[in-house]
């Protein structure tokens, strides 16, 4: 997962992006969540050799990035960082599936390369959609949306608390790591026993913190039930967003829009 600072920084970046104020950010989070889930299912449901059918779907993440004021090169960098696993597994395809499937000119391209490309496309699409969702909605709001959509309350509260305190705990961890690094030389002092007691200390402090938070909650009348104040009211725009995009995904799934466009273009020309 990279260094602690790096991870904290990444979360911080997404958090800040989510705090912007665009029309997209103001949409009901449930609409965005449902649209994104529909998008992922649509992408993933294509056959393994599909490339051109997937291309029209790139419209969704691109639209989100544009309307949500998300930096494009940040997104591309995140895609690059997250890609190794998909690439590693996907590379087996061209190695194993060598029968040519497409002929361009005189060159035969094996099915393996086509499915590999398809894998990369799926990866790019699904990951950008997920990132765009958080970047335009914010983690806390997404959790609220999950709760409204029926996710169990205990789990939603769990997500919220995790997010709230992971910054605090990651910083504590960071301080410990720095302290360790300052006192360990030529690789000594970084073994598993030290690690065990570092984690053990962190764990005990964490348990103490949990007790204190619990006290604070009790002092403000907590009885076990987390109550939420603002109700989210969906509007016409939200419904239009969700239904519009879901409709588009269904269309793109049933008709290969890229080919259609291609045929129209070549038909118009020829």
């Amino acid at each position: 997962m990279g260094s602690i600072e790096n991870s904290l920084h990444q979360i911080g970046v997404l958090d800040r992006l989510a705090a912007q104020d665009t029309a997209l950010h103001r949409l009901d989070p449930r609409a965005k969540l449902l649209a994104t889930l529909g998008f992922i299912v649509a992408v993933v449901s294509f056959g393994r050799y599909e490339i051109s059918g997937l291309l029209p779907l790139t419209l969704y993440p691109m639209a989100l990035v544009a309307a949500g004021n998300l930096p494009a090169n940040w997104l591309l960098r995140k895609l690059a960082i997250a890609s190794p696993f998909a690439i590693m597994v996907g590379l087996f395809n061209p190695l194993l599936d060598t029968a040519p499937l497409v002929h361009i000119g005189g060159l035969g391209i094996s099915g393996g390369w086509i499915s590999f490309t398809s894998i990369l496309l799926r990866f790019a699409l699904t990951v950008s959609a997920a990132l765009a969702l958080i970047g335009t909605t914010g983690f806390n709001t997404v959790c609220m949306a999950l709760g409204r959509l029926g996710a169990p309350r205990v789990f939603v509260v769990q997500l919220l608390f995790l997010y709230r305190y992971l910054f605090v705990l990651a910083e504590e961890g960071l301080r410990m790591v720095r302290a360790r690094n300052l006192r360990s030389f030529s690789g000594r002092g970084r073994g598993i026993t030290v690690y065990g007691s570092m984690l053990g200390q962190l764990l005990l402090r964490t348990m103490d913190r949990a007790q204190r938070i619990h006290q604070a909650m009790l002092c403000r009348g907590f009885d076990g039930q987390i109550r939420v104040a603002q109700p989210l009211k969906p509007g016409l725009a939200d419904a239009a967003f969700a239904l519009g995009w879901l409709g588009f995904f269904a269309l793109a799934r049933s008709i290969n829009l890229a080919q259609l466009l291609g045929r129209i273009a070549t038909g118009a020309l020829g």
Partner: protein
Amino acid sequence: MHMADALISPAVGGVMWAATAGIMVHCSRTLRDGFDSLQVPLMGVLAAFVFAAQMINFTIPATGSSGHLGGGLILAVLLGPHAAFLAIASVLTVQALFFADGGLLALGCNIFNLGVFPCFIAYPFIYRKIVGDSPTRGRIVAGSIVAAVAGLQLGAFGVVMETVASGISELPFSTFVLLMQPIHLAIGIVEGLVTAAVVGFVASARPEVLALAEGGKAPSGLSLTKVLAGLAVAAVLTGGMLSWFASAYPDGLEWSMAGVSGKEELEAPEHGIHESLASLQERTAFLPDYGFKAPEHEAEAAGQAEAEPAWPAVEAGTSVSGLVGGGLTLLLAGMLGMLLKRRAKSA
């Protein structure tokens, strides 16, 4: 390793999400009923602890590489299975959303692989059985290592099955298994050692913390039969539905069939399981109604460009073989359960 959206099919994703969601609802209900208000902040903060702990590395001697904590087992030790499952689920959700570790559809698979196996199998049936009521140093180490290894092996196997069943990747079952299981054996040992180190530290520094977690967290209502029943249902659903939706092109399972029946020396860590699986593959390969191979080869030979696969392929034959496969998996799960029970009894 996590499943990725890029390698998953909607059927596999959907089924695993259904299973995971069901378990999450069950855990939420269980926690709500036996409610201790301390759990609300404790679960969240411990999940944050695991998140932070995963970012701290240590060097593994003699290899020079670094390892870190996975967290499922230690959460189960500290919180009990139900709370730990939700905690791990929350960590994986944050990882999926912020670091693209696995995708949103694959999240169901990942929560299942990394949550169910450590929390509902490894912890109650291995760790608790070994450590019992006397958390001595030796027992903690032994329990942690065996539980962690078992949990991770099952989890890794889950990834393999899900990837292969999705049919997007061409990676054959045998190769994938050979890659995943040994790697995760090593990871499991490391995880076990780390868990033991942390639990041991806490046990000596502040034993009441462990007592707090374990008091009343005995896996009641978590009988082996219930767990197996749940897994069996998931297996049958998966087997039946997957073959219904399977792509018209040979999926990885078929690729490995040819390979497996030819190979002789597949050294898998869990010998018994591997043998059953090999037989599973052979049987489904020879079922006459498993009607994928013939049309597929014709299409390829004709060299058609971008033949769009007939999706979903609804054929009575394929679902029959799917159900047979599901039944065999049930048998498999039963064997696994018996294996574990036997091991637990002798512990």
